[in-house]
């Protein structure tokens, strides 16, 4: 039996030792690398360009050294029997039954998502809890911010159908927000204000989250055991991927993430980060202390914090509560973006959020661990323009040196004095970049059967490394673009995330999306061949990545390639093995869509709400009862109804359509007008809807 851990007994010396060793290692390795580069520059005296390179190098090397040491410390912990100071060890390994389950809300904020997938995931979790015997304490909330009528109506139907099937009325709730302020964090805050006082804990999920019933129960047990803990973040594993892009991502995450996570826990302990989903939160301190402040930016700029999670963790720590990372707990899943394009669309949003966190970096009262999380988040995107700048200054510097050395050197003398520290520096950089992958693979070898066997594990790791090495330069360009756009204040739309991987994009479409990296590649290759052809072999992986970006983006987005590699047993993860896969994942993958939840799907948008009596009655019954509209508003709604009937749904803007969808009386009147009028008096769109209805009703 494993020794139990008590977070209250962590001593300051223990925490200080851990942080001193971890950050000491980062500082030492960065200092050593910077010294080697400085020595390379030193003989001729340091020029301005070299000074710039040195500063950039320190910033950038620090980042990759952090990743390296995270894995090394994680590896060392694994070799020495695993981490003792972890939140999971505060309860017994087999603790899954809650004798007196505290009120816990499982909240699922959604925004124009695939409705069938969302509700399948929810059903899987509900069934998982029932199997654990713990469903009593948990209520589920679907918090919709969808702004497409189709999604809204389909969500309502799916909610009703699910509740009816599971007999879960009064336990699974659906709430559509009338005014969608402050995106996801606003959605969750709205829940907290309305119903937060009813619950002790809130488990926040994403639309693609799946958490097993066992883990949901254990998270509550951990919180109950540790009243000083405000938040526990799990480590969501990517699963259910089909495209090649998703499969290499989920393979890499399954292989490397445990070591990164163990290394993270080594230094931050009770100062973990929050990733915004698959986490449990103690509601009282969250409501009291974690509402997001506005940023001190001018009025014309966006003042709302786009990425809420990291700051909420910092505020929870500021309020005196611990934040832990339950990284060894199995049963937390998510689905990643299906291709590079969708991954970049998500990064566009995240980059803005992470850069905004810079404001908190030097704010008084923020815990050191949170400052470092914020710094790493900022650098995750800021490092791209810095790398690009480093490459440009480095190449420029070499070109200048090359020109002068050609003038000065005797024939036959190498214009690039590569002796001294340069090879050592190169080796150090490669070690820092690639040894973490090697260590993770080494650690997985004894259990390689989970990844399809030792040979397949090694081959998969090599291919994954190659693919990411080639994709990284293109990603660097897009991240640079995002950073520039964010700093310039170019707004971004809060778009729904594409999570479907049934169909890959076409080659033409991908080339149109990814034309910038090849242009960069051609220009850079021409410049290097002209001025510094000697460095071409060294820089060729970057140039190749730029030139091949559209092909790679297209290829990795293909489901057939993902299916093929799965057939070959490559990039396998334990969750793809039917024997070891949790029941919740199997359910989501295999469950057929509920036919009763979307019976009127032949009708679209507001036509469906008006024409289909089942949809209409459910929708109207879910609208909050309101007093009759004032005269001016009533006249406005009447004019909208008239236009909708005579000119068709296309005549109304989305805002006008929603005004009608929120008004029960308007919908009742429209419904009667639709059904009571002869077909030849109706607009063609309504006639078509009627034709559908009559056809369906024909005996």
């Amino acid at each position, binding site marked *: 039996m494993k020794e139990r851990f008590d977070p209250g007994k962590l001593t300051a010396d223990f925490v200080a030792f851990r942080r001193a060793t971890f950050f000491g290692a980062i500082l030492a390795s960065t200092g050593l690398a910077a010294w080697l580069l400085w020595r390379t520059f030193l003989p001729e005296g340091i020029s301005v360009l070299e000074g710039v390179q040195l500063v950039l190098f320190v910033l950038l090397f620090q980042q990759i050294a952090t990743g390296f040491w995270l894995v090394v410390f994680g590896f060392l912990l694994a070799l020495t029997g695993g981490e003792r100071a972890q939140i999971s060890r505060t309860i017994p390994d087999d603790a899954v039954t809650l004798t007196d389950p505290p009120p816990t809300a499982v909240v699922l904020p959604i925004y124009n998502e695939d409705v069938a997938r969302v509700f399948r995931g929810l059903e899987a979790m509900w069934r998982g809890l029932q199997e654990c015997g713990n469903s009593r304490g948990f*209520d589920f*909330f679907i918090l919709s911010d969808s702004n497409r009528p189709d999604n809204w109506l389909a969500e309502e139907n799916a*909610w*009703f159908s699910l*509740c*009816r099937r599971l007999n879960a*009325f*009064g336990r699974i*709730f*659906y*709430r559509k927000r009338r005014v969608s302020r402050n995106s996801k964090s606003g959605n969750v*805050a709205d829940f*907290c*204000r*309305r*119903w*937060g*006082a*009813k619950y002790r804990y809130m488990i926040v999920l994403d639309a693609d989250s799946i958490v097993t019933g066992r883990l949901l129960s254990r998270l509550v047990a951990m919180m109950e055991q540790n009243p000083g803990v405000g938040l526990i973040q799990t480590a969501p594993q990517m699963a259910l991927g089909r495209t090649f892009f998703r499969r290499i991502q989920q393979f890499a995450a399954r292989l490397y993430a445990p070591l990164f996570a163990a290394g993270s826990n080594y230094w931050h302990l009770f100062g973990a980060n929050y990733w915004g989903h698959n986490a449990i939160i103690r509601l009282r301190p969250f*409501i*009291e*202390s974690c*509402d*997001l*402040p*506005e940023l*001190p*930016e*001018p009025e014309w700029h966006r003042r709302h914090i786009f990425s809420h999670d990291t700051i909420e963790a910092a505020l929870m720590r500021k309020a005196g509560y611990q934040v832990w990372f339950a990284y060894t707990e199995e049963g937390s899943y998510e689905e990643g973006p299906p291709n590079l394009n969708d991954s970049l669309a998500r990064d566009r949003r995240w980059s803005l959020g992470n850069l905004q966190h*810079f*404001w*908190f*970096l*030097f*704010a*008084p*009262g923020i815990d050191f661990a949170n400052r470092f999380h914020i710094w790493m988040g900022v650098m995750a995107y800021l490092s791209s323009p810095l790398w690009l700048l480093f490459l440009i200054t480095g190449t420029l510097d070499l070109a200048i040196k090359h020109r002068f050395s050609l003038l000065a050197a005797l024939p036959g003398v190498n214009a690039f004095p590569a002796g001294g520290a340069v090879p050592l520096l190169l080796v150090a950089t490669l070690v820092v970049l690639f040894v973490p992958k090697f260590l993770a693979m080494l650690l997985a070898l004894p259990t390689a059967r989970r990844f399809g066997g030792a040979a397949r594990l090694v081959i998969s790791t090599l291919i994954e490394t190659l693919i990411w090495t080639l994709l990284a330069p293109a990603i660097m360009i897009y991240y640079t673009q995002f950073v520039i756009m964010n700093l310039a204040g170019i707004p971004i739309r809060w778009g729904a995330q594409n999570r479907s991987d049934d169909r890959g994009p076409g080659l033409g479409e991908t080339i149109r999306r990814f034309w910038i990296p090849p242009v960069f590649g051609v220009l850079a290759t021409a410049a290097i061949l002209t001025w510094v052809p000697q460095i071409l072999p060294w820089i060729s992986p970057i140039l190749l990545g730029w030139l091949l970006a559209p092909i790679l983006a297209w290829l990795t987005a293909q489901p057939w390639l993902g299916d093929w590699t799965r057939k070959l047993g490559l990039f396998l993860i334990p969750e793809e093995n039917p024997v070891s896969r949790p029941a919740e994942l199997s359910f989501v993958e295999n469950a057929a869509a509920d036919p009763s939840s979307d019976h*009127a799907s032949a009708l679209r948008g507001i036509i469906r709400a008006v024409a*289909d*009596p*089942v949809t*209409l*009655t*459910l929708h*109207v*019954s*879910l609208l909050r009862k309101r007093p009759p509209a004032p005269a001016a508003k009533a006249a406005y709604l009447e004019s909208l109804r008239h236009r909708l009937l005579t000119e068709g749904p296309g005549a109304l803007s989305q805002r006008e359509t929603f005004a009608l969808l929120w008004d*029960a009386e308007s919908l009742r009147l429209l419904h*009667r007008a639709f*059904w*009571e*009028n*002869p*077909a030849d008096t109706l607009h063609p769109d309504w006639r078509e809807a009627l034709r559908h*209805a*009559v056809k*369906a*009703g*024909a*005996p």
Partner: protein
Amino acid sequence: MDTLREQPEWDEATQRVQAYLTALGLGGVEARTRETLRIIEQARARCAAQPSLHPIKAAMEETFASLARWVAESTPGLPFESGLVTLRAQDAPAVWPRVRVSSLAAPALEAAPDLDLSRMAARDMNFGAFETIAHETWQKFAWGPVLRAAAIWTAIFFLSLYAYDRFLAP
């Protein structure tokens, strides 16, 4: 008495009532057909008394009234839509109209529990020195003169460059 001209309208009215009852999933084919014929008979009677009334309108008004009666009897006290949804939750439409379900306890159909409001408001946040610098840069710094000076000096620079190139360069 119907005229020949009106017969297509009654056909359309019959189809419309059938379609509506089917869309609601009410009963089986036999029950729906019987109820449709009953509704059409009543609509005909109304149209006979009120010749300006369109058959479809009359038939659908009868349909709505019939449904409203059924829902009101089955789920007293509930608004029509909530009542119908409650009946759907109990699969009552499948056995409509033979079985009245007023004796069944209505399940809790609330989309959300009762409100229990909390105050969640952001606390004042001190962002430190950067906030002060940013505030002074955005709010207090006079950008106008700086931009004007920069524009003038840029123009002078390029004009000088042009003049040098045009008149003085060897």
